[in-house]
Each structure stands twice: as structure tokens, then as C-alpha cells.
């Protein structure tokens, strides 16, 4: 779906790179794009949309090279739902979704038909004829999603799709995102600060910071690679010398009643058994402490300090 090789993007020839050395390959699916403010998420989306040309390296989106000549063709195959309210306030949802459909290349009549279908798909029925200035936040977000879907793109970029939604509206929006991928086969790039949203829908994750990729891959793989936190249970309590030697395995986070929470130096916890054998201790249980996504993110951003 998306592939980069040593991609570098600058806003001006003399400015510092906003993205540097990005090498990445993503399969079709739902990709969560995470990172703090200024990490380069928006720059990456602009580059993927063909609004910014790479200053170095190469990349393809849906098999189309990222260069100015091909960018218009590429944008016809991509849908974009912006974070902010990019709605035409004096027009109804139906009018503006049809308008965006026409801008994407649909014939006027087809765009009008499609606007009805896609607004129905996102759950806006009779209200689609009202000016959007009277819509609730949830309805506005659905109109934005509808305009991104009206031309049946192969890939959509969703920038903070659940912004300002109540828990029920958030659940409905995420359900729609899942349906878009599952029923329409559309690839999704979901940029969000709400880690719970990403955790719920994404099957791949890219963590950006300071214009560089800090971690990328499948959610499960990423968790596994980063999950070095384990709980060790020994048959007998360790003596003082053994406890002191535990630091050979990694940082001891907590010790209580024969249980030790460790941040292992190596990802493979089997080394703990070898260590116990060498120390004459009996290790009876190693429990991986499955990290929450915020811990994964923090660890990727600050590897030297851990989560």
C-alpha cells in the first residue's frame, strides 16, 4: 500500500528536514499513525497526498511514485478526512458531499447519487438536506468521513476522526472505520492522539518523532518486540546476593513476596531461566506484562528511560 526508501522532505531547500531517512513498507490494512505534536505526522500526510515533493529518497503510494507529475492521479484514489472542520457551512451535507465527489472526478449525476449512498452509509439520513451549520459534532465528523469516501478511494487518511465526540459517538465512528476497511476493502491511515482509538482499530502502527520513524510494524509484532517487561516468580525467595545479581537480567522495577517485576535487557525471556540455573535458584514462572499502547509509545519515543 505504501513504501518509502530513505525519504526526506523539506519545506524549503535551506530549511531543516521535516522528515528524514524514512524507510517503511505498509500493507493494506488499518495503520495507526502516532507521535507527539511536531513529530511530522501532518508532513507525512501532505507527502502521501502529493502536496509536498520529497527532497531525497523515493516512495510509492498505491503503486504510484511520489512526484508532482503523478500527484493528481494519486489524489483521485485517496480520500482525506481532515482534523479540523473543513465544511462548507452554507451548504447541506448532500450538496457538499456531491461537490467533493465531482471534484474527485465523478460525473454530476453520479456524484449526486453517490452522495446519497455514502451519507446513508455513514448514518446521516434525512438530515443530509439541512445546512451543516446546524449539525452536532458527531454529524459533522460523519459528513467529513462521507466526503472522504464519496469517490470510493482505495486508501483514506483519517486525521483525528473522533475529535470532540462523546464515548458513544466515538464508538460509532470507530465502528465505521472498521466497516470501511472490512466491507469496502479500503486501506486506512489513522492519525490520532487518542491511543485507545488506535489500539481498537489499527492492525499496524507507525510511531513518528522529530521527523523519524521510531517504531513501525504490526501491532502484535510491535508489542512483542517492545514488551520486555516480565514478572518472575521463584520457588524460594532469593537471597541478597541473588537479588543483587538480578540486575544482570535487566532493571528491577519492583520486588514483593518473591515476585520480581523486571525490565529485561533482552527481549527473549528464556534467558531468565538460564540465569536462574546459574544462580542455583528455581524459576517457576515468567509472565510477560503486556504493555498498554501508551507504554509502547513512550518506550519507542524514550528508549533510554523506558516507559
Amino acid at each position, binding site marked *: 500500500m505504501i513504501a518509502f526508501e530513505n525519504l526526506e522532505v523539506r519545506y524549503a531547500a535551506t530549511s531543516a528536514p521535516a522528515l528524514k531517512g524514512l524507510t517503511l513498507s505498509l500493507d493494506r490494512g488499518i495503520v495507526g499513525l502516532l507521535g507527539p505534536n511536531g513529530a511530522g505526522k501532518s508532513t507525512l500526510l501532505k507527502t502521501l497526498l502529493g*502536496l509536498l515533493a520529497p527532497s531525497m529518497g523515493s516512495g510509492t503510494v498505491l503503486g504510484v511514485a511520489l512526484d508532482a507529475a503523478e500527484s493528481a492521479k494519486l489524489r*483521485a484514489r485517496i480520500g482525506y478526512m481532515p482534523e479540523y472542520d473543513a465544511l462548507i457551512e452554507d451548504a447541506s451535507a448532500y450538496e457538499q458531499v456531491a*461537490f467533493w465527489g*465531482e471534484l474527485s472526478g465523478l460525473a*454530476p449525476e453520479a456524484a449526486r447519487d*453517490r452522495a446519497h449512498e455514502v451519507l446513508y*452509509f455513514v448514518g446521516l439520513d434525512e438530515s443530509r438536506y439541512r445546512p451543516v451549520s446546524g449539525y452536532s459534532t458527531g454529524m459533522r465528523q460523519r459528513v467529513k468521513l462521507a466526503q472522504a469516501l464519496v469517490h470510493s478511494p482505495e486508501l483514506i487518511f483519517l486525521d483525528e476522526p473522533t475529535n470532540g465526540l462523546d464515548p458513544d459517538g466515538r464508538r460509532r465512528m470507530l465502528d465505521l472505520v472498521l*466497516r470501511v476497511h472490512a*466491507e469496502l476493502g479500503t486501506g486506512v491511515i489513522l492519525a490520532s492522539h487518542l491511543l485507545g482509538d488506535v489500539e481498537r482499530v489499527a492492525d499496524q502502527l507507525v510511531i513518528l518523532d522529530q521527523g523519524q520513524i521510531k517504531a513501525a510494524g504490526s501491532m502484535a509484532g510491535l508489542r512483542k518486540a517492545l514488551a520486555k517487561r516480565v514478572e518472575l516468580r521463584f520457588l524460594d525467595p532469593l537471597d541478597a546476593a541473588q537479588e543483587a545479581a538480578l540486575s544482570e537480567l535487566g532493571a528491577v522495577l519492583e520486588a514483593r513476596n518473591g515476585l520480581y517485576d523486571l525490565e529485561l535487557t533482552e527481549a527473549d525471556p528464556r534467558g531468565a531461566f538460564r540465569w536462574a540455573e546459574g544462580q542455583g535458584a528455581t524459576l517457576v514462572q515468567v509472565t510477560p506484562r503486556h504493555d498498554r499502547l501508551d507504554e509502547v509509545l513512550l518506550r519507542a519515543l524514550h528508549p533510554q528511560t523506558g516507559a
Partner: protein
Amino acid sequence: MPIYAPTLPPAPDLHLGQPPVLVLMRFDFTRLWRQKIGRFFGFAFLMLLLWKVARIYVDHLLHTNEAFKPMQDFAKTILTQGADFQADLLNPASYLLWFLVALVGGGLVARDTLYRVRPLMYAHPVAPKDYLLAKLGFASLLPFTILLPFAILPWLMSLLLAGFHGPVWATAPLRLLPAMAIASALMGSLAVGASSMAATPRAGIGWVLGLVLGASTLASMIHGLTGIAAVDALNPIMLAEAWPQLFVGVERPMVAWLPAFLGTALHIALWTFVAAKRTRPSEAVI
């Protein structure tokens, strides 16, 4: 509780659509239609058009009806004649037309800025030049469309009443249409340039009026101080009125050919440049 459709039908063909420039212009027209500001202007311009057409009939009567013979000389002293009359056909109400262009054109780009839809347009297969061309095209077509009946209807009336020897020259449309096109392009580019500098449609109206009246005042002041008449070419109102005069060959046009050409080129280039800069994709903050 919203009712969700089971799923979306298959994708329609994306290759049958109209060019983005046309889609954008049509959408702006729909917006204008919804604003309903055309009622006042429609009435005002219709009255002016009726006056122009009636004038042709009156002129015909003065020349053909013996009963009106005594009034002919008097009419010649109060009504424009010859080339001035031809040029005057396009001068229904210069300020009224500028005001309409400010009202409509002032919001053309500013409304997109206010609603933040321009970045979203650029996320579609719309190039910045498409956007600029659509806005300039719409803002220029509006005054051109309003002026068109003023060039055509009196000419048709004259042809019907008196053939090729009527008060309106048989070649008048050939002279007036290019003049209209230039004046409309001037109005359109100025309106779009001004609108691109505004953050709201109301501010856009202010920008257009400010630039038009400001440039006019500046030109008048410099003219008054230096005595150089060519400086009037900075005045967009005067330029728009001068082009029909130049094309029909009025004896004393408001602005001569060369200053008119340079002044118009300067305005169109400057305001198109401003609009292009203000609507470039780097302004499209996602």
C-alpha cells in the same frame, strides 16, 4: 439512533467528470444563487437596460417622426451622440457594477479561507492553478454576463428599427465585446486578489472596495499634484470605463491607449500574483 446502510454499492466511474475548474465555478454560482443578492442588482440593472433600449426607440422616433422634429436639436444637446453614445452603452452604472463585483467577488476566496476548505480541495485532484482559474473565471464572467445584454440588446433594437443606419453602429458589438472582456478581467482579478487577502467574506468586500477606491483616490491625488494625466491609469474605475471608449474611438477617452494598457496589465498581473501566492498549497495547512 442513526440508521446505517448495509454497505456501499460498487464504485462509480471516476473518468466521466467535468474539469475541476468548471466544477468549482458551478459551485460558486450555486452559492451566489443561494445568497439572493441578485434581486436588488437584477432590478437595478434591468431598469438601466430598459432605459438604454427605450433610448434607442426614442432616438428612432426623433429621426423618423415629423412631430418630434423640434425636439431633435434639444435632444442632441442633452444626450450623448456618435462614438460617445456607443461607449456609453457599457456604462450602465459603473459604480453599481463595481459594488456588485465587490459583494460577490470579495467572498469568493475569503469564504473558502473562513471555512478552511481550500486545503481539502488540494487534497483532491485539484491543482492550485485550477483553483485560481476558477475563481478568476467566475469573478470575471459575472460582470461580463451583466454587461452582455447592454451590448447586444440595444444593438438588436437598433437593427430592427433602422437597419444598419440606426443609432447603434452595426459593428458596435465587435468593438464592445473585447472592451467588456478586458474590463471584466480587470474587475475579476482585483476582486479575487483582494478576497485572497481577507479572512472572512465581509472583510473581502471591504478589501475590494478599499483597493478600488484607494487606487482611485491615489491616482486622482497624483494627477492633481503632478498634472500627469497618464497616472489616471492606476484608477481601476476609470480604466473599466476607458476601454469601451478606446475601442469605439471616442475623441477624448478618459485614459489613452498606452497608459490604459499598462495600467490594466499592472492591475491584472499584480492581483493575480497576490491571489496565486495567497492560495498556494503551502498555505494549505493540514
